[in-house]
């Protein structure tokens, strides 16, 4: 039992975080809260990738003269780290764009609450 917890707890927490983020994106009425949920599922996916690069007993992927290169098990896998650098940038920029859209919505409708927004859009028709 302890082995399963030790081996898989990180996955379970990340899945929980993923579901929490999706919950916020689906159910929260405030647009800012939706954006926060978005950043949560993004970091859940990013942490999942980082977890896939982890090896027990390996060091960080920067060349150390004291550690031989012949056995790649001694270094962490650099590939997911690289990909996640890209994914973090994408996440930040998406966040910026979504905030820009939220600001534009507020300029047009003077609210960020989804129900009020729908009501004002109905009024306008």
């Amino acid at each position, binding site marked *: 039992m302890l082995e399963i917890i030790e081996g898989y707890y990180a996955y379970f927490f990340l899945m929980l975080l993923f579901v929490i983020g999706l919950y916020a994106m689906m159910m929260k009425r405030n647009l800012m809260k939706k954006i926060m949920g978005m950043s949560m599922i993004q970091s859940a996916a990013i942490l999942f990738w980082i977890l896939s690069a982890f090896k027990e007993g390996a060091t960080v992927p920067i060349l150390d003269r004291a550690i031989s290169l012949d056995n790649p098990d001694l270094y962490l896998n650099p590939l997911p780290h690289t990909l996640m650098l890209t994914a973090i940038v994408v996440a930040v920029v998406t966040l*910026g764009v979504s905030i820009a859209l939220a600001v534009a919505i507020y300029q047009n409708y003077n609210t960020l609450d989804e129900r009020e927004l729908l009501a004002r859009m109905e009024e306008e028709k």
Partner: protein
Amino acid sequence: MISQTQSPIIEIAARGLAPVIQLLGIYVFFHGHYGPGGGFQGGVLLAAGVLLLRLGIGASHSQAQVTSKSTVALCALGAFIFAGTGLVAILWGGDFMDYAYLPVQWLEAADLRYYGILFVEIGITIAVMTGLIAIYDDLLGIGNAGNN
């Protein structure tokens, strides 16, 4: 955030801290080959310095480093440096982004890749730094005509 703040503490702190942050950003950028860091992190730190100035001493007073008008063009320039490196490699007969084909004869391929990485990271730094500043300016409406 748009005009200059009243409190001298914030202004002095921002003026004093921003160059340190930017120096750290430049260090992180150049140290990217040997330790954690690189173009993106350096660019974000440089942008954080400018954003601190924008927050601390007001938008109109902090135009000296990067003007709001030029941010989008500079971001495009940074991305263009990156793409241009790749296109030069195509012109000299290699595949896209193959630094070994860059037209510098006296360097061997591995060193050429070393400098290619450095060159590309300059582009990343410029693009990320000015890009984040541009998003901030757009959010606050600083670049808009009549608000400047």
